[in-house]
């Protein structure tokens, strides 16, 4: 299941629950899988200095980001006994309550998926050049920083 060339991880706009449900459905033919673990990042309507976040507008250094996603993928397949791994990240506007990150790992055994998923999500947060402009209801903005 290894890819040699970076795929495009980015999707324009939010990731729909239908897309996620369908992705789960497609794994039901893979009967060596015993455990799936899914992480979803959702845009929070945070209140900052009295103003509420209405959406995040995502941009990325796409070539480098897809290379980093690819490196994370390769490294996760090396470290963990995974059957499948899928990563999708939004670009453009994602409203509060909508999903901007979908990471999906599958393995014969459950212990593996917990470790692998956390490893992948932390690596995405730390290593991938994606930028988020938090847009407030009054259309002013603030740049988001991962902690």
């Amino acid at each position, binding site marked *: 299941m290894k890819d040699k060339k970076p795929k495009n991880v980015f999707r324009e706009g939010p990731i729909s629950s239908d897309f996620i449900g369908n992705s789960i459905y497609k794994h039901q033919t893979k009967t060596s899988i015993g455990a799936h673990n899914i992480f979803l*990042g959702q845009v929070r309507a945070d209140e900052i200095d009295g103003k509420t976040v209405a959406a*995040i507008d*995502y*941009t*990325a*250094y796409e*070539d*480098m*980001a897809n*290379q*980093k996603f690819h490196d994370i993928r390769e490294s996760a397949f090396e470290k963990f006994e995974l059957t499948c791994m899928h990563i999708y*990240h939004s670009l453009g506007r994602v409203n509060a309550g909508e999903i*901007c*990150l979908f990471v999906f790992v599958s393995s014969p055994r459950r212990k593996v998926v917990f470790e692998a998923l956390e490893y992948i*999500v932390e690596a*995405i*947060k*730390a*290593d*991938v*050049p*994606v*930028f*988020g*402009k938090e847009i407030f209801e009054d259309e002013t903005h603030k*740049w*988001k*920083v*991962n902690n």
Partner: protein
Amino acid sequence: MVVTLKYFGQIAEVTQKEEEQIEIKETLISELLELLYSKYDGLKSKDFQIAQNHELVTNETAISGAEIALLPPFAGG
């Protein structure tokens, strides 16, 4: 040498552009940065990392003539 410079997020707000090509005689990233600080008011106070050929580099890295990007803090996910 001609390098392509890419700016993202709040860095692009300072430079007022997302990309440019410039002719330089500098050989280290730190020298390129001095040039950009003098060109773009407010850039020096910004927090960013630098990537050359899609890999993060330090101030002491030699410029190899490729694409150089100024990356503000990551906010993926």
